[in-house]
């Protein structure tokens, strides 16, 4: 099994160095985002490093919440406290502002979304992993489709087919303008929304990943090139700083994705607003 560790990263860099005749060579992008199959190559159940990170992103919150809830006490302490704070965070920062009290029924989905994205992202800065699951389009696409299906389903459930009418033909707009407004609303609400959700998450994580790889390659190359080793004084602190920055981005992107999903659901619940 190739393992979670980025054991092939040095070989990528070495290969890059070999191919370039001793200069600094950036590994091809498919080398830093595509991972070999562990099993089922070419099938729909192909399993690789990304799917393993997704598995961890599912497993970790489940284990944490199970341990926290196993002996939950009226006065919380330790892990129970931490997990309750995370519930409160999603409830008070995502659900209530975006949907309102009636959005509490979507709390499990939004907490799942938040943790799945966050833990998937955090692998960007975990030593020996260094790959965010969401720097591949698969997970963002799945989550965006879930959000898309969810807000349309909620809209239809609460407003019937009138949801489409109020979404495509916003009240208060002069009828003549519907020629312009309706196609724009159709595109923005039902087509671009899931796409933008997925691409925002994916592109942010991919950009961060490329940034860290770039500075890592720079540091490794400068380490071996004695004349340029002085530049390490700049490049290595930048690598450390960007690692901290990506730690924040991992959380921020999870929060933004969950919040936007909640906003879309809230908008579908009350389309007139």
């Amino acid at each position, binding site marked *: 099994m190739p393992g979670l560790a980025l054991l092939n990263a040095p070989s990528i860099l070495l290969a890059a160095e070999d191919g370039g005749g001793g200069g600094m060579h950036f590994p091809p992008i498919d080398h830093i985002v595509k991972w070999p199959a562990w099993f089922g190559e070419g099938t729909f159940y*192909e399993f690789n490093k990304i799917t393993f990170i997704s*598995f961890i992103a599912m497993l970790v919150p489940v284990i944490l919440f199970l341990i926290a809830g196993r002996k939950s006490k*009226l006065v919380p302490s330790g892990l*129970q406290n931490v997990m309750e704070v995370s519930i409160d965070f999603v409830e008070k920062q995502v659900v209530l502002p975006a949907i309102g009290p009636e959005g509490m029924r979507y709390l499990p*989905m939004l907490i799942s979304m938040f943790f*799945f994205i966050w833990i998937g992202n955090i692998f960007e800065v975990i030593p020996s992993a260094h790959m965010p699951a969401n720097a591949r389009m*698969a*997970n963002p696409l799945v989550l965006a489709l879930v959000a898309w299906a969810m807000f349309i389903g909620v809209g239809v459930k609460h407003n019937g087919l009138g949801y489409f009418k109020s979404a495509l033909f916003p009240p208060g707009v002069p009828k003549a303008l519907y020629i312009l407004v309706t196609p724009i609303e159709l595109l923005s609400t039902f087509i671009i929304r899931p796409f933008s959700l997925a691409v925002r998450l994916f592109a942010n994580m991919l950009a961060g990943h490329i940034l860290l790889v770039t500075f890592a390659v720079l540091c490794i190359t400068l380490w071996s090139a004695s004349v340029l080793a002085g530049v390490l004084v700049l490049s290595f602190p930048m690598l450390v700083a960007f690692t901290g920055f990506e730690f924040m981005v991992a959380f921020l992107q999870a929060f933004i994705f969950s919040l936007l999903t909640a906003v879309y659901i809230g908008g579908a619940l009350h389309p007139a607003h």
Partner: protein
Amino acid sequence: MLAQVSVLAAEAAESAEKINPVVPDVVGEIFWGAVFFFLLWILMRYVCLPPLLRVRAQRDAQVQADLEAAEAASTQAEQVRRDYDATLAEARGEASRVLEEARAAAEATRGQKVAGVETEIAAERQAAMAELDAERAAALGQLSGDVADLAVAAASKVVQAPLDAASHRSTVDDYVNRSGGPR
């Protein structure tokens, strides 16, 4: 250095042409991503979250009950404080009234005693004055008798003839009275 960085950027751009990262090219990642997310959602919904949400709801109820109890206790304490204040004010009023009554009684007693003493003093003074007047009158009577006798004796010495004291006493008394009368 700059040349190397530009080589790096050019290679990155070149490698980007090989794949389109926006298009998911491994179906397994979508499949497993969907499986793991829906599994997480289901487990969160039915297994992981309910115990914590339940205990949180219990805590909220407990906090609410405690708040209501605290509110009731506060109201009760306020009532007790008001009762205490009322009792205190009543006691103060009672004390003030008792003090006033005592003061009035003491004043009355003092007045009575002063009046009694003054009456007594006045009576004693009057008695003393009467006694004094009597003593004075007696002294004056005796003095006038003695003066008359002395004057008659002196006059008899001057005239060298015995004078009748009884017949001249009224003259002497009259003189004494005129010269030693009220001043």
